[in-house]
């Protein structure tokens, strides 16, 4: 009885820690992105609120909360209100299975540094990223606006087709670690990270998650200069804020996925494992911001053609070669 209670308390503590860290990280990711993009364009980013603009996320939050929550007259009310929640919640739920540090040995107990070590953790992640499509698609559909609908449709088509490439890129990783559990996948990368073992899969996965996060060069769903703001055109106030936060949470989730699957998770010399995990996730996030500051937006047909005609066949070929190699090695 006592043991069950202790486990429960530990899970609650871990939940609180992860939730707090991830939410504040997402808020400061917005600031970091604006700062870094600003410097890349030879201007200062936000620097008015607090020292170096460090209180900017707080100011943004207050502004969004104080804004009028507008629902278009012809919108589908319930779906309209539900959609932002879906896109935030699916991003938050994904953290449940991500191991963020080495297991802790405390008072004779081994505490795994993951909220829930599912043996099908990878499938859970893929399922959640498929569910995230709903938030975008429903938001675009419920707004009763042409731009929103077009944005939602584009997002749906893009995310579904790139999810395929993402799934195909994950298969070699699963084959070599022989498990769907993220803990096992990390354990298999103790000596060599999967990025070096499966470079092609790594490349496909990076491109696919870039498309999955709906960021430049794949930001067709919210292409400002043709669709106003895509699926969240009609949203205002905190509902828009939830889409916004969801996007940055998603950025961290995908960074964490890339870290776990290809960059060796929390493995690393000298520093504690949590530090390595954070360094890798933030490195990936910086790379994403860097890409956003560098690349122009793809055309929509180029984007679909690239996904279906290049990434998917390459992914299949990669699986074939990896499987043959593993069979030959025995």
């Amino acid at each position: 009885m006592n043991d069950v209670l202790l486990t429960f308390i530990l899970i609650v503590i871990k939940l609180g820690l992860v939730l707090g860290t991830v939410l504040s990280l997402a808020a400061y990711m917005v600031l970091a992105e604006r700062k870094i993009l600003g410097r890349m364009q030879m201007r200062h980013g936000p620097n008015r609120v607090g020292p170096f603009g460090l209180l900017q996320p707080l100011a943004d939050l207050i502004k969004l909360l104080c804004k009028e929550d507008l629902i278009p007259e012809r919108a589908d009310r319930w779906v309209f209100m539900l959609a932002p929640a879906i896109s935030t919640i699916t991003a938050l739920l994904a953290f449940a299975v991500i191991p963020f540090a080495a297991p802790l040995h405390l008072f004779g107990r081994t505490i795994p540094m993951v909220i829930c070590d599912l043996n099908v953790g990878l499938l859970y992640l893929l399922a959640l990223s498929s569910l995230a499509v709903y938030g975008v698609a429903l938001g675009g559909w419920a707004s009763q606006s042409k731009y929103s609908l077009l944005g939602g449709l584009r997002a749906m088509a893009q995310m579904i087709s790139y999810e395929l490439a993402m799934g195909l890129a994950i298969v070699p990783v699963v084959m070599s670690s022989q498990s769907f559990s993220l803990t096992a996948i990390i354990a298999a990368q103790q000596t060599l990270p999967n990025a070096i073992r499966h470079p092609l899969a790594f490349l496909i996965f990076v491109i696919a998650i870039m498309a999955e996060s709906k960021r430049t060069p794949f930001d067709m769903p919210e292409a400002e200069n043709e669709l106003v703001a895509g699926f969240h055109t009609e949203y205002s106030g905190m509902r828009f804020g939830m889409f916004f936060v969801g996007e940055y949470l998603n950025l961290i989730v995908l960074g964490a996925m890339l870290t776990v699957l290809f960059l060796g998770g929390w493995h690393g010399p000298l520093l504690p494992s949590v530090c390595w995990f954070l360094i890798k996730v933030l490195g990936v996030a910086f790379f994403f911001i860097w890409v956003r500051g560098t690349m122009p937006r793809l055309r929509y047909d180029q984007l679909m053609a690239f996904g279906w005609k290049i990434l998917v066949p390459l992914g299949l070929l990669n699986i074939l070669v990896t499987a043959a190699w593993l069979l030959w090695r025995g």
Partner: protein
Amino acid sequence: MSLWRDIRGTILPFWVTLRYLFRRPVTVCYPERKQIPAPRYRGRLILTRDPDGEERCVACHLCSAACPVDCISMQAAEREDGRRYAAWFRINFSRCIFCGLCTEACPTLALQMTAEYELATRELLQVVCEKEELLIDGCGKNDQYNFYRLAGIGVAAPRGSNPGESPPVDIRSNLP
């Protein structure tokens, strides 16, 4: 080869943005540091005086005629000695687009533009400037020009006594 060029063209921009990341921003942080505008910057308008200290404006209405947004208005008046001046002169800076056409139209160099650009205010009537606020004590950009001394009208000095002017011809002496 085209593929090689494409790959290069994809990767090189990353190097460019990374270099720019560590460069000093060119933005001037406005309230703390202010940029010094160019000498011919088109800012707030002023009315100047001629070298003798008299008002240059002769209330000819050319500026208000040239103004595309009709923000200048005035009333002409005449002094005892025949010198024209504006009884009142008003510029509505909430309308002014700072195009500078009025200063180009001004024949007496009375209306000139300054580099002052901080005109924002919460009180709308503060930007409607009357003559007292517009008129300065100096000559502005040209401290030589005096319209009445070059126009050949005997107001500032009797006719014929201005620089470069020959005395008026006595028309009676031209008679046969």
